[in-house]
């Protein structure tokens, strides 16, 4: 016998965006239910212990984009969230050298000069260009994208705001903006830098999570997307959520429950229920049915509409557009329990740059080649990875003296090619282990003998990300962050303001503006639209830049 209950609003999925929406709605006085298919909450912002004594940030692994407006509004620090900035970073070469990214400005200058004396000034100018663009974009993150075809006063005023901000940029900077939105990260870096190693170190931010290569147009924006976060206002800084990324969703859940919200785990959505073009509730896989006149999906746009909504409820053009929405999976993840800190022979003893993001890809050509492998359905033979050991500064995730390592791997295909056949079903245990072997082989470049210290490893292909987290094809952004899928085109033209063809049904996840990353902005923006529609628009804070 299933559960039958009525709420003011139901959120499908307990990822950071779903919970963000849920929090704002609950604070506005709505009775809100969050349903989650897994036995745990968090979506892709999750901390799980799979090896006794160790905790992983199983999916997303570093924090910068989470908007500080949201952290403050929802009192997340009071509910346990602590974000600690980390320093440094490095790219290791095959020859036993490295490029170290020092937080110490003077040391960074010297290190850049060691690679190429011209790159010191180049880095300064590059940073200026990036920061200027970030300053331009940031105010739009917590605003609903205007509909350029609409004459509604609100859309017009949002468009005007955009024009005004663009005007504030100046002619040269606006030219730069257009280049940023359209260029490849490799071309952009080639214009600035001399050193291959420096270029390769920076370029990773342009491809992480993206089914594009460093020479693909549009990747310069992806880099920008990774830079526009901040830790306490320091734009571009990254940090660890103390206790792993799950502590973000745990804090959101605690905030939500303190406002009277309800979370039900363990059964996913079977179907969004509609009647006469209006949403009426959700039916869960376990047979439970919950009713509400507002239903918001934290799932990506494809999963929401292709898997869980009756196609007959949707305009066919919308369905076509949703099917075309690019959600190519391109990355894998390996989380590792280590019995000691690995040895980095190239690095000085106790080097602080080891507490940042570490890589082993040493040129743009190498990165592009890694992409070539992915295109034909194989994981990169020389993969790019973003590898961190948070336990150097987070004492909560491994026993003292032991360490946890998070390795984000680019590229890994969703539909793996085996014997001429491309299919996600090819991801079996053997393939997964082969994938991990390939990554650890490459890692020898930085920390030889790392395998001797591995107590446990969680290896995740895009297929596992889809199966467990629910991200279609394992795309970590719930859809590519390319210009054709941003702003008023995200996810579908005409439906970029969190509303859908079904009355009362909303999208609140990263498939919507401004996109992926543990930002919370889609969730907050969606909450604003929902509250407007239910006549509680004034409950939502107005943000000023």
């Amino acid at each position, binding site marked *: 016998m299933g559960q039958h209950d009525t709420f003011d609003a139901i959120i499908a999925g307990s990822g950071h965006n779903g919970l963000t929406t849920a929090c704002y709605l609950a604070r506005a006085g709505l009775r809100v239910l969050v349903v989650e298919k897994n036995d745990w909450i968090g979506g892709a912002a999750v901390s799980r212990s799979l090896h006794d004594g160790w905790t992983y940030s199983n999916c997303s692994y570093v924090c910068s984009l989470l908007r500080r407006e949201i952290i403050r509004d929802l009192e997340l620090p009071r509910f346990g969230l602590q974000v600690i900035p980390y320093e440094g970073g490095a790219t290791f070469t095959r020859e036993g*050298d*490295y490029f*170290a990214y*020092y937080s*110490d400005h*003077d*040391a960074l*200058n*010297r*290190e850049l*000069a*060691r690679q190429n*004396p*011209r790159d*010191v*000034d*180049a880095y*300064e*100018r590059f940073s*200026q260009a990036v*920061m*200027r663009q970030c*300053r331009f974009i940031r105010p739009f993150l917590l605003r609903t994208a205007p509909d350029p075809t609409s004459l509604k006063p609100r859309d017009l005023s949002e468009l005007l705001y955009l024009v005004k901000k663009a005007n*504030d*940029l*100046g002619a*040269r*900077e606006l030219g730069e903006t257009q280049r940023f939105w359209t260029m490849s990260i490799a071309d952009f870096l080639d214009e600035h830098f001399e050193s291959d190693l420096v270029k390769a170190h920076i370029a990773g931010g342009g491809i992480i999570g993206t089914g594009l290569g460093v020479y693909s147009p549009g990747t310069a924006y992806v880099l920008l997307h990774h830079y526009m976060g901040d830790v306490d206002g320091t734009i571009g800084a990254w940090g660890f959520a103390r206790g792993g990324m799950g502590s973000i969703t745990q804090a959101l859940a605690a905030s939500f429950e303190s406002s009277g919200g309800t979370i039900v785990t363990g059964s996913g959505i079977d179907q969004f229920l509609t009647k006469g073009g209006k949403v009426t509730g959700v039916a869960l896989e376990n047979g439970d049915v919950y009713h509400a006149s507002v239903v918001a999906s934290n799932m990506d746009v494809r999963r929401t509409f292709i898997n869980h909504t009756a196609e007959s409820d949707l305009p066919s053009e919308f369905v076509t557009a949703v099917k075309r929405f690019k959600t190519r999976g391109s990355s894998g993840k390996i989380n590792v329990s280590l019995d*000691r*800190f690995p*040895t980095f*022979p*190239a*690095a*000085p*003893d*106790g*080097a602080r740059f*080891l507490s940042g993001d570490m890589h082993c890809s040493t040129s743009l050509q190498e990165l592009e080649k890694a992409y070539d492998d992915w295109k034909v359905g194989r994981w990169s033979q020389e993969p790019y990875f973003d590898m961190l050991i948070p336990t*150097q500064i987070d004492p909560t995730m491994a026993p003292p003296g032991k360490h946890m390592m998070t390795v984000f791997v680019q590229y890994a295909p969703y539909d793996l090619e085996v014997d001429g056949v491309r299919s996600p079903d090819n991801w079996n245990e053997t393939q997964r282990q082969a994938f991990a072997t390939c990554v650890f082989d490459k890692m020898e470049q930085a920390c030889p003998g790392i395998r001797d210290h591995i107590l446990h490893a969680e290896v995740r292909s895009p297929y596992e990300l889809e199966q467990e987290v629910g991200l279609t094809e394992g795309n970590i952004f719930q859809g590519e962050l390319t210009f054709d899928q941003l702003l008023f085109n995200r996810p579908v033209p005409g439906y970029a303001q969190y509303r859908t063809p079904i009355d009362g049904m909303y999208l609140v996840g990263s498939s919507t503006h401004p996109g992926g990353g543990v930002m919370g902005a889609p969730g907050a923006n969606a909450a604003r639209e929902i509250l407007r529609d239910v006549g509680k628009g004034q409950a939502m804070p107005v943000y000023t830049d």
Partner: protein
Amino acid sequence: MTDTSAARTLEEAVPLGLIPTVFQPRLEALSSAKSWMGWAGYQSAVVIENMEFEYFAIRNQSTLFDVSPMHKYRIQGPDAEAMLNRMMTRDVRKIRPGRVGYTLWCDEEGMVIDDGTLFRFGPDDFRLCCQERMLGWVLDAAWGFDVQVTDESDTISGLSLQGPTSFSILKDAGLDAAAALKPFDLAEIEPGLWISRTGFTGDLGYELWMKNADGLALWDRLWDAARDWGLKAIGFEALNLARIEAGFIAAQVDFQPIHSTLRLGRGRTPLELGFERLVDFEKDHFNGRRALLQQRQKGLRTHLVKIELGGFKPSNGALLYHRKTKEVGHVTSGAWSPTTKRNIALAELKAPYGGQVQDDLWAEIYVHEEGQWDRRLVPVTVQTSPFFSHPRARATPPRPF
């Protein structure tokens, strides 16, 4: 956190944090204040012993300030003059060999990238000294010219010997050939030792330039010669007070070098900084010429001016008002001047204030005394000449004190 049993003793590939200049061992020994700051990655003194006494030594006896962290770019070759004339707003051809020129350079929009001093060793041999790192820009500017650019920032050391008795010290150190130097003259007084009659204090003074390896010996030589002339090593704070008195501007303080500004419109042109005399529209094209010509016609956005204020409280950061109501600018560098006994400042005002409109200007100064904040509105008058100017600074041959 890392494993130490492996007994690895690798050094970082580059030093971390601040590194010492050649003179740091001497400065360290003299320093009782132990007050240091970073300057272009080098450890630099804020105060050595006591700011007031260091300041008065500048105006009364002599002082040594370590200027080694300055960025220094050697530009040599048959096209060196042409290249620099293209880069700088002033006519570089007029700086003859053996002379030093104060100069500014701009981007194509006429915004100041930095200011500095250009040393001309010979017809085809220059050194540019400046506050901001400039290698990339100088290399870009050198494109298409037959010149060689060398970054000497880390290989050449500099000492600024400033004060009324500074020549006497040079003389007793056996460097009396410097007697012939007029202000802004430059000469190789001994092999490898170039001395210019320049400085940042507006007083009699010299700058001595040498290879790093020769630095400490020269320091000791000056120090031995200075026994009767009251030499003090000084830090940045004393120098900064003297430079405000002299009316000199400082990058990142009185103007924002355009390459390090994020926000549009925060850069300033040489005209807005009051250096029309250092912009030569008659010479061939130079970076920013078109934009500066246009601005000269359309009018300036701001005026950087010297002001005198009422009251005795230093005005750093104070907002300026016209008729006590309309906010029209702010103080960029303010200080009570101990030598001239005036309350002085450099200030930026929105045009036409500070330019055509100079009457009825006021400054709002916040004063914090023993836990209490107090707001004072004091009158402001615009000045045209340096606050401190003394004939001894210009006398050639120089006076003994």
